């Protein structure tokens, strides 16, 4: 019964890691002897630190914004009932359908002052040229914005869902004690969904670390080269398919993967999120 899944797990979960480990020892033009030197060279590549910096800034912008806005909006949403609640939730998940290629397209138009629906706002901010927006120091902001709108809506709805599972008795008790809506939200609801928020933070972080589509598409279309090798995954892609250095690419991928696995193991064993799911020994 478990065979089909087990086959997939082994074939596409475990084997790739082994393959990557083997490949990461392959020789390249830079490292004709092959071996662990690939790891060092990947880290020493002149594009590595900038890419790490880019992704770092991106994560610093993206993860906290997600956490705060998603928690805030789902709490606000929880105070509204009825048809309005349904309509708002539907509205919030609309941007989630604009991902990857269509997200890049839409955001190019939204941020181009000569075409944007927000052009009046942009002008009021003194932005009249695309060049004022599409420059390297702004990229982390732009990609964070894209990623935020793609992901936030779904998460708001999900966290709203977790708020629904809070027992009515607890809230009623708080009301009887004279707590107002704000106090209930801050002191009761938020702590109760805290671990879901933490869990979301880790997933969002792991996904953000792997940012690829947006910078890649911007660089291959609208602004050639603007965000080339901007993220760690793009660098790994460049190693593999532009520098003929699959060894370096595998090494870099593997290092990123290890960061993610460490994060995953942390969530499983150091948080109580999966408590009662049969993972931890009692």
């Amino acid at each position, binding site marked *: 019964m478990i065979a089909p899944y087990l*086959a997939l797990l082994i074939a596409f979960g475990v084997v790739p890691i082994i393959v990557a480990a083997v490949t990461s020892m392959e020789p390249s033009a830079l490292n004709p002897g092959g071996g662990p030197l690939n790891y060092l060279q990947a880290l020493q590549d002149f594009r590595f630190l900038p890419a790490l910096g880019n992704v770092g800034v991106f994560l610093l912008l993206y993860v906290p914004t997600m956490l705060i806005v998603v928690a805030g909006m789902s709490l606000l949403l929880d105070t509204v009932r009825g048809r309005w609640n349904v309509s708002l939730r539907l509205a919030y998940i609309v941007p989630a359908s604009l991902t990857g290629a269509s997200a890049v397209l839409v955001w190019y138009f939204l941020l181009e002052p000569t075409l944007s629906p927000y052009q009046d706002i942009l002008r009021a901010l003194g932005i009249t040229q695309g060049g004022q927006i599409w420059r390297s120091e702004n990229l982390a902001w732009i990609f964070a914005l894209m990623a935020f709108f793609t992901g936030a809506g779904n998460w708001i709805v999900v966290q709203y869902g977790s708020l629904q599972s809070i027992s009515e008795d607890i809230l009623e008790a708080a009301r009887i004690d004279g707590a107002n809506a704000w106090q209930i939200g801050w002191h009761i609801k938020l702590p109760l969904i805290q671990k879901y928020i933490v869990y979301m933070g880790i997933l969002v972080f792991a996904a953000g670390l792997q940012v690829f589509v947006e910078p890649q598409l911007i660089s291959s279309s609208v602004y050639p080269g*603007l965000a080339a090798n901007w993220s760690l995954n793009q660098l790994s892609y460049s190693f593999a398919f532009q520098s003929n250095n699959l060894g370096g690419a595998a090494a870099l991928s593997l290092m990123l993967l290890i960061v993610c696995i460490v994060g995953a193991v942390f969530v499983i064993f150091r948080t109580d999120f999966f408590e009662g799911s049969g993972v931890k020994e009692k």
Partner: protein
Amino acid sequence: MKRLVIGIVAVAAMTLSLAACSGTTNTASGGKPTVTLWVDTPRVPQAKAYQKLMAGKQNIKIEVISQADAQTKIALHNRTKSGWPDVIFGSAPDTAQFLDPSNGFAADLTKLVSKKIFDGFGAANSDCKFDGKYYCLKNDLANTVLWYNTKVFKELNLTVPKTMDEFAATALKLRGTGYSAGAIGDQNYYASFLQPSGCPLAAMPKKNTVRIAPSDPKCTRVAELVQPLLDAGVVDKRSNFDAGFIKDVAQKDKVAMTFGPSWFGDFVIKPAASWGVPAGEIAAANMPAWGSKPDNMSGAWGGGVFTVSAHAKFPQAAADAAVWMTTSDAMATADTTPTFPAYGPANKLWEKRISADPYYASNPYPAMAAGANNISQVDRPVRFAFNAQIGSALQVDINSGKSLEAALNSFADSLQKLAPSSGYTVISK
């Protein structure tokens, strides 16, 4: 444990059966040679014409790729060791990569293609010559010329500059008139300024050695000349394709003159959705000279090549396809042939068409042809991502308002760091 075994067997079986399926699709059909062409969108009509021509004799398969993807795609297939195209359209740096032993995709064409064809190309095929052997055929030349607006020149009483100093002086006369001497914030600064000046950024004094020397006088003189124009606002730091530049300057017919490749006229200046400059205004002139001969070169922005696969099952048929794609009369006279053909005889036919185009105020062909025979050969096609770095270093810095000197230095610095990973020794002085 039993389930584990079953699972592994299941995956193995699935893999095998799928591999078997995909294996059968690749075989040649019934003795007729099959030639697979990978071309970009503008080259599709010529490929289809060839397909029609060869119907019944050869199987011509066409696959459309984006030119920028050529290296990536070949790298993928080098890994899978199958599925290569027989002929691929790309750029000369792609060929430089393909002929490297670590890649091994490019076939030596010196013997597969007749001497008559190579003679017909003349110097136009020089990008394809590596260590005395030909590894590709040049499709088109994209050398730069000086595009200027005759109406504006008349209105302001300007004369067409013959030297770069005159260019700078003419540009400065535009100050305060609202007219522009072009935008440089894209590949234009390299192709129309640095390259014609002979600034060594990918020079190859010997095999596998690349000279990247931004402090060379032929580099520094460019910034010295252009920076004041940029500061005076007569040269634009934006890209020629920037929506703001197009809306504020180009579509208002405010570009008095601009350097640009030979395809600028038909594809950037003329189309209504682009600059939309009205008919009867635009003409092309020779590139102004930095010094006297041989210091009067043009640059190149684009210009594709066809490379033939060393893995081709039918090497002669593949080479013939590449020859046809670059030299046939049909290619040269088709409405869809976009740019200046590199092959001499084909170019003559193409000349007829562009010379008769009523859009231009005067025939732009002589200037295109003059530049085509005079493209700077200082920088050579290299294996590392030279053009991509123009985008991510040079262009980005110019757009964001950094000085041209700083922009060039950071660009050169990135090239110096990139070159060794493709097996080059770097000379930086």
